[in-house]
């Protein structure tokens, strides 16, 4: 994979206003929530980048910002070299064809009164991709590609099962032959027995078309199966990004370590205390210093002052932590240290 990245995100910030008018003027608490906080991330051509993190970490907002479904507050989103962060809706139109998305809940993302064939044909007609005489043919070929027989053409969404609906949603995203696909928790609502089918479908499509994908998920196993690289988000910040296997073999950020320990086959490792403070509701006040500071078992005084910048830890592997070089060493006596912290009533 050479050449410039397909999507290059630079210092992206997305803020949501929570109070308005007089309420905002009189309130002492902040009037906005920073959902994506100064994130830089490059997605190469032909790769599947996984974005993992807990709910509220900003991974969905990041995906929506790339789609321009939410307005970025500052920063750049370069798609194929062009900054699309502030393009008008009119000038975005050609881009809408190249970037497609699949949401978590296929039932609510399809119009209940449109047949499957309408759902698949509408984007073709809107973007005038093929001659109107060939639309039917194209719809059939898309159905075939996502593993549905032509009998589904005339069905309505309520007549389909969850797996079939997700196949239609994938098909609709594929009709325009996009360069970039954003899948937001696309398999999370599916049943275990159907999930494997859809994951394999994603894999086949990526392999046959070579398109790039951003795969947003909270399921680490799913990310590992499908993605070539994985980015980990915490509280609006991207804290670590690296090639999948390297990240799983040697996670460097303490949050990634805690996350991976929960799925570790190694029971001894998993039963160790992971975090200094277990449950914690971050507020805007915690935006000073490292976002993970309060829960981090290896924090140092300087972590409270400024969020650590990205540090290159290996080829394509970056981590935002001052102490990452010591994580491997420290992990050995981590358990002892966390216990000691608890004893003295650490914050």
């Amino acid at each position, binding site marked *: 994979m050479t050449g410039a990245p397909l999507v290059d995100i630079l210092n992206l910030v997305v803020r949501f206003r929570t109070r308005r008018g007089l309420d905002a003027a009189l309130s002492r608490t902040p009037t906005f929530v920073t959902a994506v906080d100064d994130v830089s991330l490059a997605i190469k051509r032909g790769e599947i980048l996984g974005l993992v993190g*807990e709910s509220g970490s900003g991974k969905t907002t990041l995906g929506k910002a790339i789609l321009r479904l939410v307005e970025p507050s500052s920063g750049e989103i370069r798609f194929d070299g062009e900054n699309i962060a502030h393009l008008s809706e009119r000038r975005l139109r050609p881009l809408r064809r190249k970037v497609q998305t699949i949401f978590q809940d296929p039932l609510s993302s399809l119009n209940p009164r449109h047949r499957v064939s309408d759902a698949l044909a509408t984007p073709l007609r809107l973007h005038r991709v093929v001659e109107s005489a060939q639309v039917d043919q194209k719809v059939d070929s898309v159905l075939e590609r996502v593993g549905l027989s032509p009998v589904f053409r005339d069905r309505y969404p309520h007549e389909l099962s969850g797996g079939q609906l997700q196949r239609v949603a994938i098909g609709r995203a594929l009709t325009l032959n996009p360069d970039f696909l954003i899948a937001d928790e696309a398999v999370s609502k599916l049943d275990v027995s159907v999930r494997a089918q859809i994951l394999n479908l994603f894999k086949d499509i990526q392999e046959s078309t070579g398109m790039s994908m951003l795969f947003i998920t909270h399921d680490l196993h799913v990310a590992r199966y499908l993605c070539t690289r994985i980015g980990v988000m915490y509280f609006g910040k991207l804290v670590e990004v690296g090639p999948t296997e390297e990240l799983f073999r040697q996670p460097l950020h303490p949050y990634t370590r805690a996350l991976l320990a*929960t*799925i570790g086959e190694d029971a001894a490792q998993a039963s160790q205390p992971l975090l200094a403070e277990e449950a914690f509701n971050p507020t805007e006040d915690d935006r000073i210093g490292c976002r993970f500071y309060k829960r981090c078992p290896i924090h140092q005084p300087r972590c409270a002052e400024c969020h650590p910048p990205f540090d290159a830890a290996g080829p394509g592997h970056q981590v935002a932590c001052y102490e990452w070089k010591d994580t491997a060493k420290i992990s050995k006596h981590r358990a002892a240290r966390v216990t000691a912290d608890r004893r003295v009533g650490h914050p």
Partner: protein
Amino acid sequence: MSENLLEVRNLRISFQLRDASIPVVEGVDFDVRHGEVLGIIGESGSGKTVTCMSILRLLPANAVVRAERIWFDGEDLARCSDDEFEPLRGRRLAMIFQDPVGSFNPVKTIGWHFYHVSRRVAHERPELFSRRDAWRKEAVAVLARVGIPHGRQILRQYPHQMSGGMLQRALVALVLQLRPVLIVADEPTTNLDNIVEHQIIELFRGLKNDIHSSFLFITHNMSVAAKLCDRIAVMYAGQIAEMGTAVEILTRPKHPYSQGLVRTSAEIMRRVDRLQEIPGELPNWRSLPEGCRFRPRCAFARQGCEREQSLRLTSDGREVRCLLYEDVR
């Protein structure tokens, strides 16, 4: 005292719709022994939640529940009236739901919930009101046990001030305050983040050993079941497909459906190039296949599968609803 705390025999549940009666659970039998965790594994629509709700009588009015017997701690729940059942719910029988936020009253403090739960069991646990503050002391102790150290503060807080993980812990504490003999937990970790899920599972694991309650634990997650359950019932389309000890089911599943489930779950944990699929989809309730309900998706389907299958007892003491195994009964 019999070995079983709960005995369910031939449980059948159907939903009455305007134009049809949909049988969602058909002929389910299971036991929960004293002090054990019975896991019910299944996908959405397999009938696992409906089964448990029927035991607590929480189903909507259009559900018709019939059973040969629902024997719970000396009483037959299938025969008793709603008035006779009412004192059991929230005392000896308790439930933990999937969504902790929805389980609390949003305009009342956590302490208010603890007070009312304590009042409910005042008859069984008079010590909670022996002194003015006794229930509060007990609540703080129970909260500490589920990993919330500063219980006194928490009792003054409102549900929205706590994170999902903390609320789920508080809900578990609330249930422990009742000292029920059977706790029904319906996917208690599904809505939580990975790290919190792991912590709650560890909490259950700890509790299992030092309280004397039995659990009926519903999940669709194999690795959660592996960590917690003593025995497992696998449900498919309203029937139990297979039942056995957790080790048996998770390491040597016999029913083709459980084999598929266990294989997919195991493969995604390892590094594989391609996942093996279970072909097809879950059956539609309005057009269930004849005979074995897994037949259209089964790689081993053969002549005879079109007949209704019963749960067979195999020579090595396992129970499987599949023609492939000889019934020794």
